[in-house]
Protein backbone atom coordinates (compact mmCIF):
# COMPACT_ATOMS: atom_id res chain seq x y z
CA UNK A 1 0.00 0.00 0.00
CA UNK A 2 2.02 3.01 -1.29
CA UNK A 3 -0.69 5.65 -0.68
CA UNK A 4 -3.40 5.62 1.96
CA UNK A 5 -6.07 8.27 2.61
CA UNK A 6 -8.02 7.84 5.88
CA UNK A 7 -11.40 9.59 6.70
CA UNK A 8 -10.62 12.57 4.53
CA UNK A 9 -13.12 15.46 4.88
CA UNK A 10 -12.76 18.80 3.11
CA UNK A 11 -15.00 21.81 3.78
CA UNK A 12 -14.81 25.16 1.90
CA UNK A 13 -16.84 27.58 4.08
CA UNK A 14 -20.26 25.86 4.25
CA UNK A 15 -19.73 23.40 1.34
CA UNK A 16 -18.45 19.87 2.11
CA UNK A 17 -16.42 18.97 -0.97
CA UNK A 18 -15.27 15.60 0.36
CA UNK A 19 -17.18 13.70 3.05
CA UNK A 20 -15.23 11.16 5.19
CA UNK A 21 -13.53 9.32 2.31
CA UNK A 22 -10.92 6.55 2.74
CA UNK A 23 -9.08 4.56 0.10
CA UNK A 24 -5.67 3.08 -0.64
CA UNK A 25 -3.50 2.54 -3.74
CA UNK A 26 -1.17 -0.49 -3.99
CA UNK A 27 2.34 -0.17 -5.41
CA UNK A 28 2.44 -0.67 -9.20
CA UNK A 29 -1.33 -0.19 -9.59
CA UNK A 30 -3.02 2.18 -12.08
CA UNK A 31 -5.79 3.61 -9.94
CA UNK A 32 -8.57 5.70 -11.49
CA UNK A 33 -10.67 8.42 -9.85
CA UNK A 34 -13.88 8.97 -11.80
CA UNK A 35 -17.19 10.72 -11.24
CA UNK A 36 -19.34 13.58 -12.57
CA UNK A 37 -18.09 17.16 -12.57
CA UNK A 38 -17.77 18.72 -9.11
CA UNK A 39 -17.57 15.32 -7.43
CA UNK A 40 -14.39 16.40 -5.60
CA UNK A 41 -11.82 14.58 -7.76
CA UNK A 42 -9.49 17.56 -8.28
CA UNK A 43 -9.89 18.57 -4.62
CA UNK A 44 -8.77 15.08 -3.58
CA UNK A 45 -5.83 15.40 -5.96
CA UNK A 46 -4.79 18.71 -4.37
CA UNK A 47 -5.00 17.18 -0.91
CA UNK A 48 -2.50 14.47 -1.94
CA UNK A 49 -0.17 17.11 -3.44
CA UNK A 50 -0.59 19.22 -0.25
CA UNK A 51 -1.78 22.26 -2.18
CA UNK A 52 -4.90 22.01 0.01
CA UNK A 53 -4.96 21.02 3.67
CA UNK A 54 -7.86 18.68 4.41
CA UNK A 55 -10.26 19.69 7.22
CA UNK A 56 -9.97 16.20 8.76
CA UNK A 57 -8.20 12.92 8.01
CA UNK A 58 -4.71 11.56 7.32
CA UNK A 59 -2.62 11.20 4.17
CA UNK A 60 -0.01 8.44 4.37
CA UNK A 61 2.57 7.98 1.62
CA UNK A 62 5.15 5.21 1.90
CA UNK A 63 4.07 4.70 5.53
CA UNK A 64 4.81 8.34 6.36
CA UNK A 65 2.15 10.90 7.40
CA UNK A 66 2.77 13.76 4.97
CA UNK A 67 0.03 16.21 6.06
CA UNK A 68 2.45 18.82 7.33
CA UNK A 69 4.80 18.76 4.32
CA UNK A 70 4.82 21.60 1.79
CA UNK A 71 3.96 20.87 -1.88
CA UNK A 72 7.61 21.08 -3.02
CA UNK A 73 8.70 18.72 -0.21
CA UNK A 74 6.33 15.91 -1.24
CA UNK A 75 7.78 16.05 -4.78
CA UNK A 76 11.16 15.21 -3.31
CA UNK A 77 9.46 12.34 -1.41
CA UNK A 78 8.45 10.91 -4.82
CA UNK A 79 4.97 12.25 -5.70
CA UNK A 80 4.83 14.02 -9.09
CA UNK A 81 1.79 15.54 -10.83
CA UNK A 82 0.50 17.00 -14.05
CA UNK A 83 -2.20 19.68 -14.33
CA UNK A 84 -5.66 19.52 -15.95
CA UNK A 85 -4.88 22.55 -18.15
CA UNK A 86 -1.31 21.92 -19.25
CA UNK A 87 0.96 24.34 -17.35
CA UNK A 88 4.27 24.27 -19.23
CA UNK A 89 6.80 27.12 -18.79
CA UNK A 90 5.98 29.33 -21.75
CA UNK A 91 9.31 31.18 -22.02
CA UNK A 92 11.38 28.00 -22.15
CA UNK A 93 12.16 25.29 -24.71
CA UNK A 94 10.95 21.71 -24.37
CA UNK A 95 14.41 20.62 -23.19
CA UNK A 96 14.52 23.39 -20.55
CA UNK A 97 11.04 22.42 -19.31
CA UNK A 98 12.21 18.86 -18.73
CA UNK A 99 15.47 20.08 -17.17
CA UNK A 100 13.36 21.88 -14.55
CA UNK A 101 12.08 18.47 -13.49
CA UNK A 102 15.69 17.38 -12.85
CA UNK A 103 16.24 20.46 -10.61
CA UNK A 104 16.76 18.56 -7.37
CA UNK A 105 19.00 15.93 -8.89
CA UNK A 106 21.72 18.44 -9.80
CA UNK A 107 23.53 19.08 -6.53
CA UNK A 108 25.86 21.92 -7.32
CA UNK A 109 25.54 25.12 -5.32
CA UNK A 110 24.65 28.65 -6.34
CA UNK A 111 28.25 29.84 -6.11
CA UNK A 112 29.52 26.97 -8.21
CA UNK A 113 27.27 28.22 -10.99
CA UNK A 114 28.17 31.86 -10.49
CA UNK A 115 31.90 31.16 -10.66
CA UNK A 116 31.51 28.27 -13.18
CA UNK A 117 33.33 25.72 -11.00
CA UNK A 118 33.79 22.12 -12.35
CA UNK A 119 30.80 20.56 -10.51
CA UNK A 120 28.51 22.92 -12.42
CA UNK A 121 29.64 21.54 -15.78
CA UNK A 122 29.67 17.97 -14.48
CA UNK A 123 26.02 17.98 -13.43
CA UNK A 124 24.77 20.17 -16.28
CA UNK A 125 26.18 17.67 -18.80
CA UNK A 126 24.72 14.72 -16.87
CA UNK A 127 21.34 16.44 -16.63
CA UNK A 128 21.29 17.30 -20.33
CA UNK A 129 22.06 13.68 -21.24
CA UNK A 130 19.28 12.32 -19.00
CA UNK A 131 16.84 14.93 -20.29
CA UNK A 132 17.59 14.03 -23.91
CA UNK A 133 17.08 10.35 -23.06
CA UNK A 134 13.69 11.26 -21.52
CA UNK A 135 12.73 13.17 -24.66
CA UNK A 136 13.80 10.20 -26.77
CA UNK A 137 11.52 7.95 -24.74
CA UNK A 138 8.63 10.29 -25.61
CA UNK A 139 9.75 10.83 -29.24
CA UNK A 140 10.21 14.54 -28.66
CA UNK A 141 13.94 14.89 -29.46
CA UNK A 142 13.26 16.89 -32.63
CA UNK A 143 11.36 19.50 -30.59
CA UNK A 144 14.12 19.88 -27.95
CA UNK A 145 14.98 23.49 -28.84
CA UNK A 146 11.45 24.49 -29.75
CA UNK A 147 9.40 26.69 -27.41
CA UNK A 148 7.30 24.28 -25.35
CA UNK A 149 3.96 26.05 -25.76
CA UNK A 150 4.19 26.07 -29.57
CA UNK A 151 3.81 22.25 -29.78
CA UNK A 152 0.61 20.35 -30.63
CA UNK A 153 -1.75 19.60 -27.72
CA UNK A 154 -0.81 15.91 -27.62
CA UNK A 155 2.91 16.65 -27.64
CA UNK A 156 2.51 19.28 -24.92
CA UNK A 157 0.81 16.66 -22.73
CA UNK A 158 3.77 14.32 -23.38
CA UNK A 159 6.25 17.07 -22.40
CA UNK A 160 4.31 17.62 -19.17
CA UNK A 161 4.45 13.92 -18.31
CA UNK A 162 8.14 13.75 -19.26
CA UNK A 163 8.76 16.76 -17.00
CA UNK A 164 6.93 15.08 -14.11
CA UNK A 165 8.93 11.86 -14.65
CA UNK A 166 12.16 13.85 -14.49
CA UNK A 167 11.54 14.40 -10.75
CA UNK A 168 12.13 10.62 -10.39
CA UNK A 169 8.74 9.90 -8.74
CA UNK A 170 7.37 6.72 -7.18
CA UNK A 171 3.74 7.88 -7.54
CA UNK A 172 2.57 9.81 -10.62
CA UNK A 173 -0.67 11.81 -10.45
CA UNK A 174 -2.25 12.47 -13.87
CA UNK A 175 -5.08 15.03 -14.03
CA UNK A 176 -7.28 14.14 -17.06
CA UNK A 177 -4.30 13.21 -19.29
CA UNK A 178 -6.53 12.23 -22.23
CA UNK A 179 -8.65 15.38 -22.11
CA UNK A 180 -8.94 17.11 -25.50
CA UNK A 181 -7.25 14.27 -27.40
CA UNK A 182 -8.48 12.44 -30.51
CA UNK A 183 -8.78 8.62 -30.37
CA UNK A 184 -5.36 7.71 -31.83
CA UNK A 185 -3.61 10.32 -29.66
CA UNK A 186 -5.35 8.75 -26.65
CA UNK A 187 -4.21 5.32 -27.82
CA UNK A 188 -0.64 6.57 -28.26
CA UNK A 189 -0.75 8.14 -24.76
CA UNK A 190 -2.08 5.04 -22.98
CA UNK A 191 0.62 2.96 -24.67
CA UNK A 192 3.30 5.37 -23.37
CA UNK A 193 1.83 5.43 -19.85
CA UNK A 194 1.86 1.63 -19.69
CA UNK A 195 5.49 1.55 -20.94
CA UNK A 196 6.81 4.12 -18.44
CA UNK A 197 4.86 2.43 -15.60
CA UNK A 198 6.76 -0.78 -16.17
CA UNK A 199 10.10 0.84 -17.03
CA UNK A 200 10.12 3.12 -13.91
CA UNK A 201 8.10 0.76 -11.61
CA UNK A 202 5.59 3.56 -11.05
CA UNK A 203 2.22 3.66 -9.33
CA UNK A 204 -0.27 5.87 -11.18
CA UNK A 205 -3.30 7.72 -9.81
CA UNK A 206 -5.32 9.42 -12.53
CA UNK A 207 -8.51 11.42 -12.97
CA UNK A 208 -10.33 10.78 -16.26
CA UNK A 209 -13.73 11.16 -17.93
CA UNK A 210 -12.98 9.06 -21.07
CA UNK A 211 -14.45 5.70 -19.88
CA UNK A 212 -12.84 3.77 -22.78
CA UNK A 213 -9.41 5.07 -21.67
CA UNK A 214 -10.18 4.21 -18.01
CA UNK A 215 -11.43 0.78 -18.97
CA UNK A 216 -8.33 -0.45 -20.72
CA UNK A 217 -5.89 1.40 -18.44
CA UNK A 218 -6.98 1.19 -14.80
CA UNK A 219 -6.57 -1.84 -12.56
CA UNK A 220 -8.99 -0.34 -10.08
CA UNK A 221 -11.34 2.67 -9.94
CA UNK A 222 -13.01 4.75 -7.26
CA UNK A 223 -16.24 6.46 -8.28
CA UNK A 224 -17.12 9.67 -6.45
CA UNK A 225 -20.36 11.59 -6.35
CA UNK A 226 -20.75 14.79 -4.26
CA UNK A 227 -17.57 13.91 -2.36
CA UNK A 228 -18.75 10.46 -1.31
CA UNK A 229 -17.53 7.05 -2.42
CA UNK A 230 -20.27 5.20 -4.33
CA UNK A 231 -18.14 2.38 -5.80
CA UNK A 232 -14.62 0.93 -5.64
CA UNK A 233 -13.41 -2.00 -7.75
CA UNK A 234 -12.62 -3.08 -11.32
CA UNK A 235 -13.63 -0.62 -14.06
CA UNK A 236 -15.55 -3.39 -15.87
CA UNK A 237 -17.73 -3.89 -12.74
CA UNK A 238 -18.15 -0.13 -12.30
CA UNK A 239 -19.81 0.28 -15.72
CA UNK A 240 -22.55 -2.18 -14.83
CA UNK A 241 -22.94 -1.01 -11.25
CA UNK A 242 -26.43 0.42 -10.75
CA UNK A 243 -25.40 3.26 -8.39
CA UNK A 244 -22.65 4.44 -10.78
CA UNK A 245 -25.01 4.57 -13.75
CA UNK A 246 -27.57 6.45 -11.70
CA UNK A 247 -24.91 8.95 -10.63
CA UNK A 248 -23.84 9.54 -14.24
CA UNK A 249 -27.41 9.34 -15.68
CA UNK A 250 -28.45 11.35 -12.74
CA UNK A 251 -26.34 14.02 -14.34
CA UNK A 252 -29.14 14.43 -16.88
CA UNK A 253 -31.78 14.39 -14.17
CA UNK A 254 -30.06 17.29 -12.37
CA UNK A 255 -29.64 19.29 -15.63
Amino acid at each position, binding site marked *: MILELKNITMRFGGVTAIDNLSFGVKTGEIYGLIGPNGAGK*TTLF*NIVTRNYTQTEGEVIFNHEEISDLKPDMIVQRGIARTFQNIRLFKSMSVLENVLIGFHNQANYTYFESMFRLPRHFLFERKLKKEAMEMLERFGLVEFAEVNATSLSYGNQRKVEIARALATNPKLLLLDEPAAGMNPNETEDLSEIIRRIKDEFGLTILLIEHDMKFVNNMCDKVLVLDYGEEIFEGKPSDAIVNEKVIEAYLGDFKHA
Partner: protein
Amino acid sequence: MDFSTFMQQMVNGISLGSMYALIAIGYTMVYGVLRLINFAHGDIMMVGAFVAYLANSAGVPFEISVVIAILAAMLTGILTDKIAYKPLRDAPKISLLITAIGISFFLENLFNVLFGGVPRAFAAPEYLTKILHLGSIVIPVTVIIVPVVTGLLLGITLLILNKTKYGMAIRSLAFDIPTVKLMGINADFIIMLVFAMGSALAAIGGIFYAISYPSIDPLMGILVGLKAFAAAVVGGIGSVTGAVLGGFILGFTEIVVVAFMPELGGYKDAFAFVFLILVLLFRPTGIMGQDLERSRF
Protein backbone atom coordinates in the same frame (compact mmCIF):
# COMPACT_ATOMS: atom_id res chain seq x y z
CA MET B 1 1.23 65.84 29.09
CA ASP B 2 -1.74 67.58 30.69
CA PHE B 3 -5.33 66.84 29.73
CA SER B 4 -5.78 69.75 27.31
CA THR B 5 -2.71 68.90 25.27
CA PHE B 6 -3.83 65.27 25.21
CA MET B 7 -7.25 66.26 23.86
CA GLN B 8 -5.45 68.55 21.45
CA GLN B 9 -3.45 65.69 20.03
CA MET B 10 -6.46 63.35 19.95
CA VAL B 11 -8.33 65.81 17.77
CA ASN B 12 -5.32 66.31 15.48
CA GLY B 13 -4.97 62.55 15.20
CA ILE B 14 -8.58 62.13 14.11
CA SER B 15 -8.21 64.91 11.55
CA LEU B 16 -5.05 63.48 9.97
CA GLY B 17 -6.57 60.00 10.13
CA SER B 18 -9.62 61.04 8.18
CA MET B 19 -7.45 62.58 5.46
CA TYR B 20 -5.58 59.28 5.08
CA ALA B 21 -8.95 57.49 5.06
CA LEU B 22 -10.33 59.59 2.20
CA ILE B 23 -7.33 58.72 0.05
CA ALA B 24 -7.19 55.08 1.18
CA ILE B 25 -10.77 54.46 0.00
CA GLY B 26 -9.71 55.21 -3.58
CA TYR B 27 -6.79 52.76 -3.37
CA THR B 28 -8.89 49.96 -1.91
CA MET B 29 -11.69 50.29 -4.46
CA VAL B 30 -9.34 50.24 -7.46
CA TYR B 31 -7.35 47.33 -5.99
CA GLY B 32 -10.52 45.45 -5.06
CA VAL B 33 -11.76 45.58 -8.65
CA LEU B 34 -8.63 45.49 -10.75
CA ARG B 35 -6.05 43.99 -8.34
CA LEU B 36 -3.99 47.04 -9.32
CA ILE B 37 -2.05 49.36 -7.02
CA ASN B 38 -2.89 52.71 -8.58
CA PHE B 39 0.44 54.43 -7.91
CA ALA B 40 -0.94 57.58 -9.53
CA HIS B 41 -3.69 57.88 -6.88
CA GLY B 42 -1.50 59.91 -4.52
CA ASP B 43 -0.80 62.35 -7.32
CA ILE B 44 -4.51 62.67 -8.10
CA MET B 45 -4.83 64.01 -4.55
CA MET B 46 -2.17 66.61 -5.46
CA VAL B 47 -4.07 67.46 -8.66
CA GLY B 48 -7.16 68.13 -6.51
CA ALA B 49 -5.25 70.46 -4.18
CA PHE B 50 -3.49 72.30 -7.04
CA VAL B 51 -6.59 72.83 -9.18
CA ALA B 52 -8.45 74.18 -6.15
CA TYR B 53 -5.52 76.55 -5.49
CA LEU B 54 -5.30 77.67 -9.14
CA ALA B 55 -9.06 78.23 -9.50
CA ASN B 56 -9.23 80.07 -6.19
CA SER B 57 -6.27 82.34 -6.92
CA ALA B 58 -7.80 83.08 -10.35
CA GLY B 59 -10.66 84.74 -8.48
CA VAL B 60 -13.14 81.85 -8.49
CA PRO B 61 -14.93 81.63 -5.10
CA PHE B 62 -13.50 78.89 -2.88
CA GLU B 63 -16.54 76.60 -2.88
CA ILE B 64 -16.77 76.54 -6.69
CA SER B 65 -13.03 76.00 -7.08
CA VAL B 66 -13.38 72.96 -4.78
CA VAL B 67 -16.04 71.53 -7.12
CA ILE B 68 -13.84 72.28 -10.13
CA ALA B 69 -10.94 70.54 -8.37
CA ILE B 70 -13.04 67.43 -7.68
CA LEU B 71 -14.17 67.27 -11.30
CA ALA B 72 -10.60 67.75 -12.52
CA ALA B 73 -9.38 64.94 -10.27
CA MET B 74 -12.19 62.64 -11.45
CA LEU B 75 -11.31 63.44 -15.05
CA THR B 76 -7.63 62.69 -14.35
CA GLY B 77 -8.57 59.38 -12.74
CA ILE B 78 -10.83 58.36 -15.61
CA LEU B 79 -8.31 59.39 -18.28
CA THR B 80 -5.58 57.47 -16.46
CA ASP B 81 -7.74 54.37 -16.61
CA LYS B 82 -8.78 54.91 -20.23
CA ILE B 83 -5.32 55.67 -21.65
CA ALA B 84 -2.98 53.59 -19.52
CA TYR B 85 -4.85 50.75 -17.82
CA LYS B 86 -7.70 49.76 -20.17
CA PRO B 87 -5.42 48.64 -23.06
CA LEU B 88 -3.47 46.53 -20.59
CA ARG B 89 -6.48 44.91 -18.95
CA ASP B 90 -5.20 41.43 -19.59
CA ALA B 91 -1.48 42.16 -19.82
CA PRO B 92 0.85 40.66 -17.19
CA LYS B 93 0.58 42.34 -13.78
CA ILE B 94 4.08 43.80 -14.03
CA SER B 95 3.25 45.94 -17.09
CA LEU B 96 0.23 47.42 -15.32
CA LEU B 97 2.31 48.35 -12.26
CA ILE B 98 5.05 49.94 -14.36
CA THR B 99 2.46 51.95 -16.30
CA ALA B 100 0.90 53.09 -13.02
CA ILE B 101 4.33 54.33 -11.87
CA GLY B 102 4.77 56.02 -15.25
CA ILE B 103 1.50 57.92 -14.85
CA SER B 104 2.46 58.95 -11.32
CA PHE B 105 5.79 60.37 -12.53
CA PHE B 106 4.09 62.03 -15.48
CA LEU B 107 1.64 63.92 -13.24
CA GLU B 108 4.31 64.98 -10.75
CA ASN B 109 6.70 66.34 -13.34
CA LEU B 110 4.01 67.86 -15.53
CA PHE B 111 2.76 69.96 -12.61
CA ASN B 112 6.36 70.71 -11.72
CA VAL B 113 7.01 72.03 -15.22
CA LEU B 114 3.72 73.95 -15.48
CA PHE B 115 3.55 75.43 -11.99
CA GLY B 116 7.17 75.28 -10.89
CA GLY B 117 8.51 73.66 -7.79
CA VAL B 118 7.93 76.71 -5.59
CA PRO B 119 5.77 75.73 -2.58
CA ARG B 120 2.63 77.87 -2.83
CA ALA B 121 0.42 79.27 -0.11
CA PHE B 122 -3.02 77.63 -0.17
CA ALA B 123 -5.51 80.38 0.72
CA ALA B 124 -8.57 78.88 2.40
CA PRO B 125 -11.58 81.05 3.34
CA GLU B 126 -12.10 82.46 6.84
CA TYR B 127 -14.65 79.92 8.08
CA LEU B 128 -12.34 77.03 7.33
CA THR B 129 -9.26 78.41 9.06
CA LYS B 130 -10.96 79.85 12.15
CA ILE B 131 -9.56 78.67 15.48
CA LEU B 132 -11.98 77.77 18.28
CA HIS B 133 -11.10 78.07 21.97
CA LEU B 134 -12.85 75.44 24.11
CA GLY B 135 -11.55 76.25 27.57
CA SER B 136 -7.80 75.79 27.39
CA ILE B 137 -8.03 73.56 24.31
CA VAL B 138 -7.30 75.40 21.06
CA ILE B 139 -8.92 73.67 18.04
CA PRO B 140 -8.67 74.78 14.42
CA VAL B 141 -12.14 74.33 12.91
CA THR B 142 -10.87 72.03 10.16
CA VAL B 143 -10.07 69.44 12.79
CA ILE B 144 -13.84 69.03 13.31
CA ILE B 145 -15.09 69.54 9.77
CA VAL B 146 -12.73 66.96 8.22
CA PRO B 147 -13.79 63.92 10.29
CA VAL B 148 -17.48 64.86 9.93
CA VAL B 149 -17.22 65.16 6.15
CA THR B 150 -15.22 61.94 5.99
CA GLY B 151 -17.90 60.10 7.96
CA LEU B 152 -20.54 61.50 5.62
CA LEU B 153 -18.62 60.45 2.50
CA LEU B 154 -17.95 56.99 3.92
CA GLY B 155 -21.70 56.61 4.53
CA ILE B 156 -22.51 57.70 0.97
CA THR B 157 -19.88 55.39 -0.49
CA LEU B 158 -21.16 52.39 1.48
CA LEU B 159 -24.72 53.28 0.50
CA ILE B 160 -23.77 53.32 -3.18
CA LEU B 161 -21.82 50.08 -2.90
CA ASN B 162 -24.45 48.10 -1.03
CA LYS B 163 -27.74 49.54 -2.11
CA THR B 164 -27.44 50.64 -5.73
CA LYS B 165 -27.32 48.60 -8.93
CA TYR B 166 -23.91 50.07 -9.79
CA GLY B 167 -22.63 49.25 -6.32
CA MET B 168 -23.57 45.63 -6.74
CA ALA B 169 -21.87 45.57 -10.13
CA ILE B 170 -18.69 47.02 -8.60
CA ARG B 171 -18.69 44.42 -5.84
CA SER B 172 -19.25 41.57 -8.29
CA LEU B 173 -16.43 42.85 -10.50
CA ALA B 174 -14.17 42.36 -7.50
CA PHE B 175 -14.54 38.59 -7.95
CA ASP B 176 -14.30 37.91 -11.62
CA ILE B 177 -14.32 40.43 -14.44
CA PRO B 178 -14.84 37.96 -17.36
CA THR B 179 -17.95 36.36 -15.86
CA VAL B 180 -19.41 39.77 -15.01
CA LYS B 181 -18.91 40.79 -18.63
CA LEU B 182 -20.81 37.69 -19.69
CA MET B 183 -23.81 38.94 -17.74
CA GLY B 184 -24.12 41.98 -19.98
CA ILE B 185 -22.70 44.50 -17.50
CA ASN B 186 -20.50 47.07 -19.20
CA ALA B 187 -17.43 46.35 -17.06
CA ASP B 188 -15.43 49.27 -18.43
CA PHE B 189 -18.16 51.74 -17.44
CA ILE B 190 -18.21 50.33 -13.92
CA ILE B 191 -14.41 50.51 -13.70
CA MET B 192 -14.61 54.12 -14.85
CA LEU B 193 -17.12 54.74 -12.06
CA VAL B 194 -14.69 53.23 -9.53
CA PHE B 195 -11.89 55.51 -10.69
CA ALA B 196 -14.22 58.52 -10.63
CA MET B 197 -15.38 57.86 -7.06
CA GLY B 198 -11.87 57.10 -5.82
CA SER B 199 -10.43 60.21 -7.45
CA ALA B 200 -13.18 62.47 -6.11
CA LEU B 201 -12.54 61.28 -2.55
CA ALA B 202 -8.79 61.70 -3.05
CA ALA B 203 -9.31 65.28 -4.27
CA ILE B 204 -11.37 66.11 -1.16
CA GLY B 205 -8.64 64.53 0.97
CA GLY B 206 -6.05 66.63 -0.87
CA ILE B 207 -7.96 69.84 -0.32
CA PHE B 208 -8.41 69.12 3.40
CA TYR B 209 -4.66 68.32 3.59
CA ALA B 210 -3.87 71.64 1.90
CA ILE B 211 -6.13 73.53 4.33
CA SER B 212 -4.44 71.99 7.38
CA TYR B 213 -0.91 72.34 5.94
CA PRO B 214 -1.28 75.34 3.63
CA SER B 215 1.84 74.95 1.47
CA ILE B 216 1.36 72.82 -1.63
CA ASP B 217 3.89 71.55 -4.18
CA PRO B 218 3.77 69.02 -7.05
CA LEU B 219 5.47 66.29 -5.01
CA MET B 220 3.13 66.45 -1.99
CA GLY B 221 1.17 63.42 -3.20
CA ILE B 222 3.96 60.84 -3.09
CA LEU B 223 4.45 60.14 0.60
CA VAL B 224 0.84 60.74 1.66
CA GLY B 225 -0.34 58.43 -1.16
CA LEU B 226 1.97 55.61 -0.11
CA LYS B 227 0.97 55.94 3.52
CA ALA B 228 -2.70 55.88 2.51
CA PHE B 229 -2.13 52.65 0.57
CA ALA B 230 -0.32 51.11 3.54
CA ALA B 231 -3.35 52.13 5.65
CA ALA B 232 -5.67 50.44 3.11
CA VAL B 233 -3.64 47.22 3.35
CA VAL B 234 -3.57 47.36 7.16
CA GLY B 235 -7.35 47.88 7.19
CA GLY B 236 -7.85 45.00 4.76
CA ILE B 237 -7.45 45.66 1.06
CA GLY B 238 -10.71 45.53 -0.86
CA SER B 239 -12.88 46.60 2.07
CA VAL B 240 -13.90 50.29 2.15
CA THR B 241 -14.56 50.36 5.91
CA GLY B 242 -11.22 48.62 6.33
CA ALA B 243 -9.51 51.45 4.43
CA VAL B 244 -11.12 54.08 6.67
CA LEU B 245 -10.18 52.10 9.78
CA GLY B 246 -6.60 51.74 8.54
CA GLY B 247 -6.47 55.47 7.75
CA PHE B 248 -7.56 56.42 11.26
CA ILE B 249 -5.18 53.99 12.91
CA LEU B 250 -2.25 55.40 10.95
CA GLY B 251 -3.20 59.08 11.39
CA PHE B 252 -3.80 58.54 15.06
CA THR B 253 -0.53 56.76 15.71
CA GLU B 254 1.53 59.35 13.86
CA ILE B 255 0.16 62.25 15.94
CA VAL B 256 -0.38 60.69 19.36
CA VAL B 257 2.75 58.53 19.55
CA VAL B 258 4.95 61.43 18.44
CA ALA B 259 3.21 63.77 20.90
CA PHE B 260 3.98 61.38 23.77
CA MET B 261 7.52 60.63 22.60
CA PRO B 262 8.73 63.68 20.63
CA GLU B 263 12.15 62.10 20.09
CA LEU B 264 10.39 59.59 17.80
CA GLY B 265 9.36 62.55 15.63
CA GLY B 266 11.92 61.70 12.96
CA TYR B 267 10.46 58.21 12.51
CA LYS B 268 6.88 59.48 11.97
CA ASP B 269 6.86 58.63 8.26
CA ALA B 270 8.15 55.12 8.86
CA PHE B 271 5.20 54.01 11.02
CA ALA B 272 3.03 53.30 7.94
CA PHE B 273 5.57 50.90 6.47
CA VAL B 274 6.34 49.21 9.78
CA PHE B 275 2.60 48.53 10.17
CA LEU B 276 2.54 47.19 6.62
CA ILE B 277 5.31 44.69 7.20
CA LEU B 278 3.76 43.57 10.51
CA VAL B 279 0.39 43.04 8.82
CA LEU B 280 2.02 41.04 6.01
CA LEU B 281 3.76 38.83 8.54
CA PHE B 282 0.83 38.03 10.77
CA ARG B 283 -2.41 38.75 8.92
CA PRO B 284 -1.90 39.26 5.18
CA THR B 285 -5.59 39.91 4.58
CA GLY B 286 -5.55 42.87 6.96
CA ILE B 287 -8.07 43.61 9.74
CA MET B 288 -11.29 43.60 7.73
CA GLY B 289 -10.23 42.05 4.46
CA GLN B 290 -11.03 38.62 3.09
CA ASP B 291 -8.71 36.59 0.96
CA LEU B 292 -9.10 37.93 -2.58
CA GLU B 293 -6.59 35.36 -3.89
CA ARG B 294 -8.81 33.44 -6.27
CA SER B 295 -8.19 29.72 -6.21
CA ARG B 296 -5.38 28.81 -8.55
CA PHE B 297 -6.00 25.06 -8.78
